[in-house]
């Protein structure tokens, strides 16, 4: 178990180090001749107006919210799915109830108009 994690850890370190090293090498090779015009922000070819941190609408938050709820519910369902073959029909219906409550959450969000991209 810990050996698996060791391999995974090494793999992750290499996977994230490789692009970093590539970017560093390219940084050494590439010219560095910045000037204020070149470094200015690109927006459709005209000068940027206002600051970049614009106000967002609440819709993004609502989608994130529903995603979070579904994510946590499926996290509870994954151990259940692993045990599925050893479970009785009763336990399956418990999970169906669980998923139905999840579906009710989706239904509420839908009826409330929270799923509309306005």
């Amino acid at each position, binding site marked *: *178990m810990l050996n*698996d994690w*060791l*391999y*995974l850890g*090494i*793999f992750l370190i*290499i*996977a*994230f180090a*490789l*692009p970093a090293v590539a*970017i560093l*090498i*390219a*940084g050494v*090779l*590439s010219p560095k001749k*910045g000037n204020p015009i*070149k*470094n*200015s*922000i*690109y927006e459709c070819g005209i000068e*940027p107006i206002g600051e*970049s*941190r614009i106000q*967002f609408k609440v819709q*993004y938050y609502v*989608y*994130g919210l*529903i*995603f979070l709820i*579904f*994510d946590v519910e*499926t*996290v509870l*369902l*994954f151990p259940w*799915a*692993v*045990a*599925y*073959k*050893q*479970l009785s*029909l009763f336990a*399956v*219906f418990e*999970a*169906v109830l669980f*998923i139905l409550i*999840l*579906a009710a959450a*989706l239904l509420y*969000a*839908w009826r409330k108009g929270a*799923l*509309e*991209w306005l």
Partner: protein
Amino acid sequence: MSFLADPVNFITQWLSTLLIGWGASASFTQLILYIIGAGALTLGALFFTVFLIWLERKIGGRFQDRLGPNRLGPWGIFQPIADMLKIFTKEYITPTGADKVPFNLAPILAVGGVLAMWAVIPYASTVFGVNFNIGVVYLIAVGAIGDLGIIMAGLGSNNKYALLSGFRAVANLISYEVPMVLVLLIPVLFSGSLGMNDIVKSQQTWNIFLAPLAALIFFTTSIAENGRAPFDLLEADSELVAGFNVEYSGLKFGMFYVADFLHSFTAALVFSTVFLGGWRGPGAETIPILGFVYLILKSSLVYFLILHIRFTIPRFRIDQMMDFNWKFLTPISLVLLMVTIVIDKLIPTDLTFIRISVHWAVNILIWVAADRILSAALKSHPAKVVARPRPLARPPHVAVDEKPGGEI
């Protein structure tokens, strides 16, 4: 064990006997082997991407009635290498007011998040990175790191369009993760394990035959997850300049490019592992290298499908894309999950033929019902026309015959 049948394990054994012969301890040898294995796999994946870029451009060219790259080498196969050399010597431009750390970290996270998926995929019956009991959840979790890279690119660039695009992209990605995770539960419960190799081993009948609708939903969402057309909303040039990576240049931009191309093949790889039986095929148990060939063949087929869809279907609008996910895919996958778990419990596993036919019947039933409901809903709520067409340019003396307040 011969070299031709199972080269990876042959080399591993040879190396470990060599190292132990030099007096290295067993655990140290293991560590060295892990480092070599992981390094070879990641480097191989990155160089494979170079080939993938050529392949995608070539196939894309053919779809659009062009030649595609054709100058450097036979069939232009050295084109991506020339591009790579060029991009290595391009200047990095950091926009004024950029948030340096997130800005520079974003391309690394984007590539690393995709590369990390290769750690758990079983390539042959004896060659797999790790098979501990979390593979499927790991795949989803690593996808979340890619989301984080995109959001960092948007936040760090100090550019409204990059920020808007990054947020849209993340909203899309997390939305499509919901049906994806829900349908991934189905192969997990068929095999009774979260480990990828266990899932492959348990597929006496491929999962796509047991759960065709789940496979279809997973395929759709994985296209959406890597932001390919028709879901390539984050690079809608006309609305968002070029997406969250507008301020990137040089290899930092190249890394997003690499991540994009690598991700589409990785999606094909994951799909064929989970639903198409991975390395399974005639003779793959005894001759492991055959399994690798099967896996690559299956993935190439899926990859070609992804490309086909990319080059033929036009882009969605963002509201259509969100509606498609939340009002169509998610309800279907919830219903599918509930029906599948009840039915599969009722039918004994050894009645393979009956099991497959019942699953097919139920899946087709759900699909037809969803289609009926969808067309009825579309009839009662006709599609919104977002913008009214502008009046055509005309000389001022010509009268306009436009109905006041006419609906279009």
